[in-house]
């Protein structure tokens, strides 16, 4: 699944937020998310699986519990990509500002003759 699709979902973003504060068990995450979003435990498990398989989280078993943590590397890659995308558009639009400013003055002169 594409990184955008992973992060586009509000439940998965919330799970990442919870894990950003530190490692948590699948059970803890599930309880919080089930309450906040009103979804079932299997639905939360499905989201955890997507995050795990896409590399956004890591998981380690401790006894009977499975502890989830955020892996910041894919997040950083998405952020870098977006930043590049944003910068490219920002600069285009700034250049468009300058061009429009020049054209406005030119049109003003022509109209005001």
């Amino acid at each position, binding site marked *: 699944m*594409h990184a*955008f*699709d992973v*992060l*586009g*979902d*509000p439940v998965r*973003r919330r799970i*990442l*937020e919870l894990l*950003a*504060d530190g490692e948590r068990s699948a059970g803890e995450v599930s309880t919080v998310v089930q309450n906040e979003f009103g979804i079932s435990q299997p639905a939360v498990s499905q989201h955890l699986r997507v995050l795990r398989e896409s590399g956004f989280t890591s998981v380690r078993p401790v006894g009977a519990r499975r502890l989830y943590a*955020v892996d*910041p590397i894919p*997040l*950083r890659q*998405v*952020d870098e990509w*977006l930043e590049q*995308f*944003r*910068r*490219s*558009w*920002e*600069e*285009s*639009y*700034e*250049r*468009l*500002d*300058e*061009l*429009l*400013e020049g*054209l*406005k003055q030119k*049109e003003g002169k022509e109209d005001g003759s």
Partner: protein
Amino acid sequence: MAAKTNALKVTTPSDTEILLTREFDAPRDLVWKTITNPELLPQWWGPRGTTLVVREFDFRVGGGWSYLSKGADGEHPFKGEYREIVAPEKIVQTFIYDVPPFNEMVAVENMTLTERDGKTTLQTLVQHGSKEARDGHLQSGMEGGAGETMDRLEELLAKTA
């Protein structure tokens, strides 16, 4: 000098979409005339330091466009096709980064221009992903995010840093 209020806003309205919103201090007719003029395109399209060659600009529904952007890191070809044109308010076009394997992915750009108090807001909704990908989404029952901004991602990154 007025304060800089025309910052680019980037949001993700759904799983596969990016919405760019930017205000320009010019009336809509002028913005429209400018962005649809192939002779003016090299003056603004692309990051600073790049030069643009407009290879095709067949501005009608079904017509194609093709640009070559040259920068310090090399040449980048882009192309697409116009799907809908409503002067002076709307352009729908496809967008392809014409380099394998990226050229297998077709994005759709929906541009809308709205005018208020002599200023124009340009919104570009970039829809990524194939129809298959979208259908896959619908089948798996995943709902789109609700207009979350990328600021959330940045907060998250700050936390995990």
